[in-house]
């Protein structure tokens, strides 16, 4: 498979980054702003064709491009079903989807599932793509407040009936999204460690801290490689790769809390939103990867 994103992707991701940073902004306090800004951002994403980046003149865009897009999106924690909508359009045959609709995925194949952005007005749950069976409403859903940036609903309805390839691709992009958030916090934390003084020195100059940064950088790099392995065609290893990629994101974020110290443990910094986002995505990836037919009441948090 293609390893690096295409040149087209590199270009439009720069433009998308510009759009997101202009509307949402950067920094650990952007989560609140993201919620405020989403009403302004979404129409721009739709009108600017940003929901269609998964489609090219030659067909579906390469997964390396999708991983790049999800990684960027993950750095902004915008609470909107962008990644699932992009993937839905990428998977769908022409005419299978209503262009004006917003799509999400219900994870779990039996009677009970998790639905990111299940409470989004008018959101449709993908089902039977290509079989023209239509796409279901999420039904009655109870919002999970753990990670508001994902708006996960618990739904008693059936999960999306995606193909194995679609499930694997979704696991890969969700893992990449989690790593995108971890990467943004890593860059923030790096700057913090260069300026935060302790005992008369920048904390980043202490070897113990410097080595943590080196290890985090290693984990982010290999997490990125794991998303590639997850998106590759080798079904035997792809699931495990996706799981490990999203685990790398969670591990990185927990270590960043440690480097930030007390401030990292505070609500105000906002680091916890990235951690919650990654933990929740890690759960979704785990559910996608699992072979079980339905989620148990315990797994649904009932």
């Amino acid at each position, binding site marked *: *498979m*293609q*390893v*690096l994103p295409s040149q087209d992707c590199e270009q439009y991701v720069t433009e998308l980054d510009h759009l997101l940073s202009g509307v949402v902004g950067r920094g650990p306090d952007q989560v609140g702003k993201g919620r405020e800004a989403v009403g302004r951002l979404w129409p721009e994403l739709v009108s600017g064709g940003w929901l269609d980046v998964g489609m090219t003149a030659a067909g579906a865009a390469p997964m390396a491009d999708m991983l790049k897009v999800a990684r960027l999106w993950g750095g902004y924690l915008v609470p909107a079903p962008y990644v699932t909508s992009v993937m839905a359009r990428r998977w769908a045959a022409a005419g299978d989807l209503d262009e004006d609709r917003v799509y999400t995925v219900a994870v779990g194949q039996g009677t009970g599932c998790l639905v990111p952005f299940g409470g989004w007005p008018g959101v449709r749950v993908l089902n039977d793509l290509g079989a023209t069976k239509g796409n279901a409403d999420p039904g009655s859903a109870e919002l999970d407040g753990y990670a508001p940036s994902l708006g996960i609903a618990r739904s008693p309805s059936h999960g999306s009936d995606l193909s194995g390839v679609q499930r694997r691709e979704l696991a890969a992009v969700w893992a990449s999204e989690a790593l995108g958030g971890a990467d943004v916090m890593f860059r923030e934390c*790096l700057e913090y*460690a*260069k300026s935060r003084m302790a005992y008369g*020195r*920048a904390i*980043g*100059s*202490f*070897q113990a*801290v*410097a*080595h943590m*940064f*080196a*290890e985090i*950088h*290693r984990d982010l*790099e*290999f997490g*990125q*490689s*794991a998303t*590639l*392995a997850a998106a590759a065609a080798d079904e035997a*290893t792809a699931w*495990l*790769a996706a799981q*490990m990629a999203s685990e790398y994101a969670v591990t990185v974020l927990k270590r960043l809390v440690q480097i930030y110290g007390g401030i990292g443990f505070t609500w105000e910094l906002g680091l916890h939103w990235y951690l919650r986002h990654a933990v929740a995505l890690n759960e979704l990836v785990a559910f996608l990867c699992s072979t079980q037919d339905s989620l148990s009441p315990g797994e649904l948090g009932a």
Partner: protein
Amino acid sequence: VPAKTFEDPDVEIFRAQLRDWLQANVPKTWGSRFELSEAEQSRIKTDWERTLSKGGYAGVSWPLEFGGMGLGPIEEVVFYQEAARAHAPEEANVIGKHVAGPSIAVNGTTRQRERYLQPILDGVEIWCEGFSEPDAGSDLAAVQTTADIDGDMLRITGHKIWTSNAHIADLCWLLARTSREQSRRHNVSMVIVDMHQEGVEVVPIRDLTGERHFNEVSFNGAVAPIENVVGEINEGWQLASVTGFRAGRQAITGGLRRYLFLREWADTLVDCCASGPGQRAEAERLSMRVELVSWQVMRSAELVAQGRNWHQSTSVLHVYWGELMQDLTAFGVATRCARHREHWRHLDLQSRSATIYGGTAQIQKNVIATRVLGLKSPR
């Protein structure tokens, strides 16, 4: 012209042809090497170098003018991926092929290129690397071995230690001080030294596994013609840090060489040693970590091929595979596999070196923190 990628048709053709060639040429004896002595394994590896040479695969990314295949980092990655898949032997002449040769190709004189490069590819001259000293391990600029200029000769005096393969080497890629006045990092030179001469004494060092593959080397009156200095005199530290046309690729090649045997180790764990769901799950995770080495070098190789910044992705390879080797072999011991018990116990001990040689894991992390992430030098 777009940079080459792993999807290019000619790369796929290269892979297919290589796969066929490996299937026909990988020695069957290598598969049962657990039962062979160190000397027998060493002979298989040396023979493999010559087999690669005959097949034209000895220098995949070496330039055509120096006897290589003239291909790039993408094909080099493919070579190791397929060699790992075929469970091919490791290389015997790592220093010659991956350190000295590439540097001579770029920095050497015409005479040096003509004299030294072809024998490296032919597998007929084995090289060792004379860098580490008792008081200069990871800190190469601190070497004390001297190469004093005496007419058109250099007289070499000093001790090198932990010198792998010095006991079988024909030539040494030696870092020695050639100035007592110049500042640190501008007072050492890279010299090619004939190991078969009076004044060179090689004393094997027994490592903690009981093997004797590395050595202490004493230079006491050994000589080398001054024309054996590679690059500028007193600028050897630069050559020790960067290796010619492979600048940026050395870390990739290092990762690939480890992938070659890590893949086989992981296959052994999954196929034989791990029993029960818990052990199998752990073996599969370790196997995936091995596969991530391959993905990481693929990403790095495409970045190199495109001339883009590859430091971020290559800098973490050594730290990653070093720790992986230790985790994987420790788990091998923990499986208590009767068939591979001695194998894993040996490798578990041997892998202690994986976070020491080539710059300790701690030094590697310092380098990442300062040169890649821009933190101040740790104390």
